[in-house]
């Protein structure tokens, strides 16, 4: 019975260890699923089919720029808002300035308001498709080129395109208690 027990023990231990590995295997698996199904492909250019410009509708596109993780950058949109038509090829410019005396790498993450507008953005080019490395005191102007698909629901008249730059590299630390805990 003792040897039986040992054998059962080893088998069960193998399952436990394998499941620990499986937890980590979920990471590439998740990325692959998002890639294959096209969910969450924030960093890839869209294929834009030729669409009619719907000149009967005018949208107000508001641009918003933020930085996070104590990134020593000034980041702004060149215009705060533009008026566009659905289906029209639009280019807007953002400017980022590195205020520190060291090279810093950042990654911009887009978000949209209203959230459902996101799926109607077709981006041909965006500075958010790759990380941006700015040398000390460098200033850079960066474009976003996109079309808003004419299928955008009729009740949406104002769309906000927002980017937040995050610091990349091992310079970030996990615990930032002073930042997240407001003094009460």
């Amino acid at each position, binding site marked *: 019975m003792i040897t039986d027990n040992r054998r059962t023990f080893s088998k069960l231990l193998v399952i436990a260890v394998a499941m620990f590995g499986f937890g980590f295997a979920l990471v590439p698996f998740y990325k692959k699923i998002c890639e294959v199904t096209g969910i969450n492909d924030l960093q890839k250019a869209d294929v834009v089919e030729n669409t009619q410009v719907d000149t009967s509708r005018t949208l107000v596109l508001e641009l918003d720029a933020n930085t996070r993780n104590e990134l020593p950058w000034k980041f702004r949109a060149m215009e705060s808002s533009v008026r566009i038509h659905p289906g029209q090829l639009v280019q807007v410019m953002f400017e980022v300035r590195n205020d520190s005396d060291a090279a810093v790498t950042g990654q911009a993450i887009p978000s949209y308001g209203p959230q459902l507008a996101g799926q109607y953005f077709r981006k041909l080019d965006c500075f958010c498709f790759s990380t941006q490395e700015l040398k000390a005191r460098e200033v850079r102007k960066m474009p976003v080129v996109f079309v808003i698909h004419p299928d955008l629901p009729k009740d949406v008249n104002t769309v906000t395109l927002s980017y937040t730059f995050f610091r990349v590299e091992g310079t970030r630390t996990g615990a930032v208690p002073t930042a997240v805990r407001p003094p*009460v």
Partner: protein
Amino acid sequence: MEAVHGHDHAHDHDHHHPTGITRWLTTTNHKDIGTMYLWFSFAMFISGGLLALGIRAELFQPGLQLWRPEFFNQLTTMHGLMMVFGAIMPAFVGFANWQIPLMIGASDMAFARMNNFSFWLLPPAALLLIASFFVPGGATGAGWTLYAPLSIQQGMGMDLAIFAVHIMGASSIMGSINIITTILNMRAPGMTLMKMPLFVWTWLITAYLLIAVMPVLAGAVTMLLTDRHFGTNFFNAAGGGDPVLYQHVFWFFGHPEVYIMILPAFGIVSQIIPAFARKPLFGYSSMVYATASIAILSFIVWAHHMFVTGMPAAGQLFFMYATMLIAVPTGVKVFNWVATMWKGSMTFETPMLFSVGFLFVFTMGGFTGLILAVTPVDIQLQDTYYVVAHFHYVLVAGSLFALFAGTYFWLPKWTGNMYSETLGKLHFWCSMIFFNITFFVMHFLGLAGMPRRIPDYSQQFADFNMIASIGAFGFGLSQLIFLVAVVKCIRGGEKAPANPWEGADTLEWTHLPSPAPYHSFETPPVVK
């Protein structure tokens, strides 16, 4: 360490085992270890309950009276962690330790020394959780699910919680390996798998679930730890990670975990209802298959916790239908329990009261679960008090009431004394009434839109919150009756016969005296 027991208990039952604290530190006896698990979980139940009373005290009135908001979040988080990992899970392991060897006619658990180790890992983990309140920044306030990115940003209380989860996970895995090995290899001659009592069956399946998902949780919190301190970016959007990934990994563990906490409860109730209806369990084999189906389905429903994360409609539909499918085997079980009672000659001693109470109230929790499974409804009710009401109906009225039922049922076998039926009934009625006062109104709060995990609320929620808080304090105090009933029963009382329950027919009742001797079934019984 003068008291090293051999692996084979058959030869050392004459010599004196150590007394005092050494007995408990070094014991490899499944009954001692079961007792320690049960007392440990009761201590955690009281601690977690005090935190809950802290929550309800703050919510007694709108506005901020007692706690700062971040401490309130620590209360909700630690209440969840302590109750799930400290109270409910170890309590069921305690039952497994006491009952499985007795019910299958084994002399002890398969790995007696590892059994001791799995228990003694728990107190340090509990101390880590409690100590985390006193470190700079306090305990983690990220919610018991420890969602990224919040959990990546918290102070060192979060690290202590991660270590505690690691340790408790290791303990659970060792415990489960022990339970599976015992059940598979050490059954008495003649006890085939399909003759095992249902409590043993449910624990066998639960133990497999634990082995499959506790390591995944360990992986998830390890990723949190490396994201926090070692520069990885699993869940950090800026570094190419994804916070939603954490939710997927967590709920891949988290949903089977829900069944880990309820399947042994099903097992306990399936022992008690036939005993007090004086009829064999209706549909034994369908009960076994239903348990297995629930366990298998639990692996493909995790994303119903995440309907608002922006999942494609196909995903929402899949997880909605898969979730609803679980109602089928669960319905089979409820039907079987009712059919067992049908035309039985029932009596309502405390274990039966708790079991029938379980049946009523757990089923309500099951129905609200079905409502929450409907994606559009869930999107509306996500993170409201409706969800809080739902999972307290299944975890308190489900798991906890079954634990109470089981305790009263087996106390005569464990202690050799009958518990006080008066105290037991008082405990049941107080618990049942105050439970519903506390949690029933939370459905209304949730439907009206009150969000969970917030220390303040709008005026229109005031009345229901006041009712819930009064109920919570009543429920908390009622548990002192339980403590008194158990202590009185241990100290003395009417001597229990070998089988005080007319309809109970498992081995511990038919083959062993009350109290069960320290070493039982050294020669295995033969099961016909």
